[in-house]
């Protein structure tokens, strides 16, 4: 297991509520959820930097490109 470092995170009430809701839905701790979010962010960044595009597809197979800034 890699060494870990600790940080303090300041969140608004809404952000904290969302974090609690998502971590409960995924059945992981808030820390684990934030680590997953960070990795997801990196994965998206890496793939976009390779020239790939990120799409959402609805039930009618209609695609919408997500522009990440």
């Amino acid at each position, binding site marked *: 297991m890699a060494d870990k470092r600790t940080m303090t995170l300041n969140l608004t009430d809404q952000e904290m509520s969302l974090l609690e809701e998502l971590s409960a839905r*995924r059945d*992981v701790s808030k820390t*684990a959820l934030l680590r997953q979010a960070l990795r997801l962010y*990196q*994965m998206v960044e890496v793939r976009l930097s390779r020239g790939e595009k990120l799409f959402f597809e609805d039930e009618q197979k209609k695609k919408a490109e997500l522009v990440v800034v």
Partner: protein
Amino acid sequence: MKNRIRIIDNATGQPVEAELFDEVTVEHFIETQQEWRPIVLKAARQLAARGSHQLIPQHFHWDWTTKAPELNVLANTFYGIRYENKLQGLMKLETVGQFCSCRLPEQAGNALVYVDYVEVAPWNLKPLMSSLGEKARYNAIGSRLIEAAVLKSKEEDCKGRIGLHSLPITESFYAKACRMTPVGRDPAKQNLLWLEYTPEQAENFLTGAR
């Protein structure tokens, strides 16, 4: 990370100490292409010539070197097993992504660790080595890799939950030997069978593996 693990030497039936590691590099991928792939292809040709098409490894075309760009993405974790200075098995896990959600009704939507690729060195696969008139050398490589996946899941707070798409030839290994729950065929992934562990099943597997 480097851990001592036990695999079975089929020549003696006795356990031997191998090394499980997660510092996988592109050199390991090249090693699979140089050391594994020629044997896999030779065995596949033999099996095809005998008409034993159902035994031809469905992963014969895999090329780990194509995964080199994924080595530095934190969502991915790679594990290898080394013994006698040879790579005996290789696995890629994803802790985030499209397939990192449970599908079993009792844990649907919960986070899991997805086992994206598992490959055991061809000289450890009985059907392949039989086709070449040889015996498989080491056993329990696949089980040790699944054990590592479960431990990674626990480390990631996924409580041992893992999921994977199995090739048809390995379905019985995951369902019977590992006792994972077959959930159903996935049209989004070549209609492969999706199997999953609950935390309890994962713990049972770890207990049995020790």
